[in-house]
């Protein structure tokens, strides 16, 4: 198993840049998520690590060795494809042993290895079946078996749950995580589903428009987004953005929105212009005496919580509240924002303004 270091990786397809100078580090044994909307370059990055695409520039280190220009067969990396890519003209056993056959392994060893792996994944009884008639979950397991059978240095997974139906995804994602914890294998996992990334990942890289937006642990990315894109992409409903004109100076611990002073973490940067007050829906509460007020436009009941949409002087806002609270459409309510959780953004650059909350995160990247 191995550590993977990505340094200034770039990929151009003609005039189109799929990945711009990206850098991040995947520690040994980590379950690492590459998250982003479709077309952001996450799959290209994964394919470059695996060797299915060669980078235009930049370096990839696997276990300290630079491998960016090597063919996939010399990288010792396994790949699980979105559509599984099981060879249709071979049965399950042949699919699983295919990577071992290419290594020229002895027959008896192949047999033992296939038996061991199929036992781990619980597919011993379907080994001699053709791949055509298998269920989605079994295909997934066979694809995983083919990946783990050769004990690679790392696993690449390209939206491996994307082809499964919702109900089964949940189950399979648990199975994957258990498998990972058991094998302790470095895994890079591409997904566009932020929930999946938060649930399964030890670390997340968020990509957008060919660049790495943020890289860190799920909680850190959720609580301390460094760009408006990340703040918007992660979380459902996403972070609220209240737009206002003004400025902050080093040492400020409040901003003024529509004449109301709102507390924020201590600011560490001087900035003027169009600013954005970012607050997560669960960090909003209602108080009768709040001076910053909003009008309730809609209430969405979700069981234990409810999502309340409000009209405020600085734009629409969604709050997540306990369902027990009685709220009616048309109510005017005072709003209270948890000051410690607020992130301010500079609208033009889309970047977070450095404060005591996020200074450590912004320093990394």
């Amino acid at each position: 198993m191995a550590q993977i270091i990505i340094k200034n990786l770039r990929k151009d397809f003609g005039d189109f840049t799929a990945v711009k100078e990206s850098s991040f580090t995947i520690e040994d044994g980590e379950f690492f998520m590459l998250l982003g909307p479709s077309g952001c370059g996450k799959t290209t990055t994964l394919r470059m690590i695996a060797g299915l695409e060669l980078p235009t520039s930049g370096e990839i280190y696997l276990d300290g060795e630079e491998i960016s220009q090597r063919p996939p067969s010399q990288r010792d990396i396994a790949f699980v494809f979105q559509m599984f890519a099981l060879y249709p003209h071979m049965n399950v056993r042949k699919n699983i042993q295919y990577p071992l056959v290419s290594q020229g392994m002895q027959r008896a060893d192949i047999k033992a290895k296939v038996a061991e792996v199929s036992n781990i994944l619980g597919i011993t009884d379907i080994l001699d079946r053709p791949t055509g008639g298998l269920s989605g979950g079994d295909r997934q397991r066979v694809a995983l078996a083919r990946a783990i059978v050769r004990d690679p240095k790392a696993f690449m997974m390209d939206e491996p749950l994307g082809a499964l139906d919702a109900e089964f995804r949940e189950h399979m994602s648990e199975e994957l995580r258990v498998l990972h914890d058991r094998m302790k294998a470095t895994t890079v996992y591409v997904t566009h589903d932020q929930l999946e990334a938060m649930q399964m990942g030890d670390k997340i890289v968020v990509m957008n428009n060919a660049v790495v937006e943020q890289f860190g642990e799920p909680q850190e990315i959720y609580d301390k987004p460094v760009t408006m894109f990340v703040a918007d992409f992660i979380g459902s409903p996403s972070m609220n953005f209240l737009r206002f004109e003004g400025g902050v100076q080093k040492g400020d611990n409040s901003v003024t929105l529509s004449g109301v002073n709102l507390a924020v973490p201590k600011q560490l940067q001087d900035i003027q212009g169009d600013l954005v007050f970012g607050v997560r829906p669960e960090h909003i509460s209602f108080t009768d005496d709040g001076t910053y007020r909003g009008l309730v436009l809609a209430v969405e009941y979700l069981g234990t919580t409810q999502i309340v949409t409000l009209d405020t002087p600085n734009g629409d806002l969604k709050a997540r509240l306990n369902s027990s609270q009685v709220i009616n459409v048309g109510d005017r309510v005072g709003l209270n924002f948890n000051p410690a959780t607020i992130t301010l953004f500079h609208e033009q650059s889309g970047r977070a303004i450095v404060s005591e909350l996020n200074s450590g995160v912004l320093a990394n990247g």
Partner: protein
Amino acid sequence: MSYSVTESSSRQKWIAGTLVILYAVITLVPLGWIMITGFKTPPDSISYPPKVFFEPSVEGYVNLFTTRTRVSKETLESLPPPTNFAEEIVRNREMVIAGPSKFGQRFMNSVIIGFGSTFLSVFLGTLAAYAFSRFKIPLADDLLFFILSTRMMPPIAVAIPIFLMYRNLGLSDTHLGMILLYTAVNISLAVWLLKGFIDEIPREYEDAALIDGYTRFQAFYKVVLPQAATGIASTAIFCLIFSWNEYAFAVLLTSGTAQTAPPFIPTIIGVGGLDWPAVAAGATLFLIPVMIFTIMLRKHLLRGITFGAVRK
């Protein structure tokens, strides 16, 4: 596999069945007529009204495979008794067998040239189609159009230049010349058909093979080729049918060593009157290889021409 939602009623099935049978009868009657004519005697074959019931004879086949000389009655009577059935049939017409005809050799020429050019077209076509399908080739669209342009006029329109060129190159009346010519005509069809088939094979299979430790070429022949078998089979059938049946270039460019069966069969007519049974026998034998080849690949052909019509 998806199926149509509405089950057709028995009435519809009945009508459809009748139409298919009717169509089959109409198209098969000429073929059937050729086949039975091959077993008629020459007088039966030209009798009027035409005979549907007759006493079968292999005279047509004997005439097809032999050359014969007419002899006088006296000479005929002075000969020892015939040693085989062919000799007996010929003598009844007051002739003796002079030697074998060239049909066997011409037939072999057809086999060599037809299958040779089919193999070459499909071989080159598969490689080209794979390259067009998988790699970023500069001007790929223009090149594909250019390849197809060989089909934009009847090939026979350039017969004279080809004739002159072949004469100068010494390719006239050679197996190689005919194989090259038919390959040149077939290859555009092969590239286009096969590109369609290979485009349909997900790239992920090759990616998986590359990851599993195989080279690009191993991935091509171990993973892509088995998947493309259907396309290769149907392309081969189309190519074979063209080169097997080609008549005009064969007449123009071959006369001896490399002459194929199509220009040879009509020349039988001239030997000793209108020998229709021999012509019919030749035509019947000529049909057989394509028939066997098509039946062998029939399963693929059916899947091939409906390819893409149904989602797998």
